[in-house]
């Protein structure tokens, strides 16, 4: 088997592999940087909660449209994801519940509701698709949607970078100078939900957040500067997509889980070998004299 057969042939030979690859690269570019911000804001769990929260909305869209319609499910997911994000934030502000507890409650409820709604009308196959995605079935309209969301994400991130960083780093100061932090917070939540909707068809509601959090964790292990972290995160998400697709093609594995497993392997390697990783801890370099 030549290098060409191994690394390029699957994409040269099959349209569905090409579309899956483009989708993965786009998702990585958008979700990677978003994941870094999620992690820095200690909202990793919230990303998880929001990805599950997309499910009932998408399921209602599915019920209304009667098939796996991208527009209906995307729109439903967007509305449901945003409302859960805002509602659970409000619940934790107004009650004694900590934010993580209120998110956990919301995402369990929405996962159960979503599965219930899908199983009302659909088959078990549909349920599987909704939960774990169908990256090899991505068609041109889905690709346009993913591409549009990624472009929008990058443009908005570039535009609100300064206030978003200020809001993450020192919200008290931003409030004091009248910086309208909550506006950027909500805008950021909107981006998170949009990216989850984009990943939804590819990776399903259970793993959509995988291309956000795992690459972000990798980035945090390798760098101490935010722009570099965002670049590493996007690159490792895209690489996971490419390597995962190749592995799933040659080894005949399910694509979505293979992609996430690849991201997880990159994460494991980073834990071992990154500058702040374990290898450095167990085999310390001799320190300089003086």
């Amino acid at each position, binding site marked *: 088997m030549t290098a060409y057969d191994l690394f390029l042939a699957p994409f040269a030979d099959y349209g569905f592999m090409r579309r899956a690859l483009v989708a993965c690269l786009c998702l990585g570019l958008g979700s990677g940087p978003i994941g870094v911000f999620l992690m820095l804001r200690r909202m990793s769990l919230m990303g998880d909660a929001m990805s599950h929260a997309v499910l009932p909305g998408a399921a209602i869209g599915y019920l209304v449209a009667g098939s796996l319609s991208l527009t209906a499910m995307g729109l439903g997911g967007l509305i449901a994801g945003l409302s859960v994000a805002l509602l659970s934030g409000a619940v934790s502000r107004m009650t004694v519940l900590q934010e993580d507890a209120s998110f956990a409650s919301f995402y369990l409820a929405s996962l159960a509701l979503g599965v219930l709604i899908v199983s009302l009308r659909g088959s078990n196959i549909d349920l599987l698709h909704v939960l774990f995605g169908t990256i090899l079935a991505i068609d041109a309209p889905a690709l346009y949607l993913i591409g549009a969301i990624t472009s929008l994400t990058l443009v908005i991130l570039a535009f609100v970078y300064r206030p978003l960083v200020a809001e993450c*780093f020192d919200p008290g100061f931003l409030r004091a100078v009248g*910086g309208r932090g909550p506006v950027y917070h909500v805008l950021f939540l909107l981006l998170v939900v949009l990216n989850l909707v984009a990943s939804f068809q590819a990776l399903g509601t259970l793993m959509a957040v995988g291309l956000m959090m795992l690459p972000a964790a990798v980035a945090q292990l390798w760098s101490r500067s935010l722009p570099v972290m965002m670049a590493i995160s996007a690159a490792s998400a895209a690489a996971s997509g490419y390597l995962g697709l190749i592995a799933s093609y040659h080894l005949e594995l399910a694509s979505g889980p293979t992609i996430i497993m690849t991201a997880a392997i990159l994460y494991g390697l980073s834990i071992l070998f990154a500058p702040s990783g374990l290898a450095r801890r167990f085999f310390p370099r001799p320190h300089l004299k003086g």
Partner: protein
Amino acid sequence: MTPLIRLENLTVAYNRHPAVHHVSGAFASGSLTAIAGPNGAGKSTLLKAIMGELRPAEGRVEHRLGRAEFGYLPQAAEIDRRFPISVIDTVMLGAWKKTGAFGRIAPAEMKRAGEALSAVGLEGFGRRHVGSLSAGQFQRVLFARLLLQDAGTILLDEPFTAIDARTTRDLIDIVTRWHGEGRTVIAVLHDFELVRAHFPQTLLLARELVGWGATADVMSSVNLLKARAMAERWDEDANACAPEEAPAA
């Protein structure tokens, strides 16, 4: 001296729990005041109310200052120091009034940020990551940000907590210089020695006002005993304050 900020029967609640009761008085323009008191006395709450971040449950805060005219130093614990941001970027946040969320950063501002860093003794630290700084160095960075803000009214929340003696000395010098330049400075402090040594005016708080005026008068042993006695009486479950507790206007 003309009053810059006037408090009128100010009551502030935190999580619907009244934390500061019926405070009245005024901060003179150009004054250097310490807000002192035992733990849980509502000092930070009062500071946030002055700044307009917390709404009064009762009474008023009166001043003619816009939000951007306050320089504010948050409590160190409110900031995540592991955030991946460089020292110079942190200082540059002080130019927010000029740059806003989207404006360009002029080279002159960049130069001023460098000068502010030198003024707090951190020349050449600009490219460093804030996570690599000690607590004292980080506090110096936040003071550099205040220098860049160049505000006429400066509010400091526990500026000298958990930092080394030398940094405390240097930062107090900066506060004294601000006072000399005619800026109004209000600092929340729990270290009574620092208050006595460096702050001409004191507002002694134990959820209610114990005393407000010249430090030597306010920090009398009678008042301090009173503040401690009030702190020991605090009942966390008390809801609204009874009408008879309110001082006659």
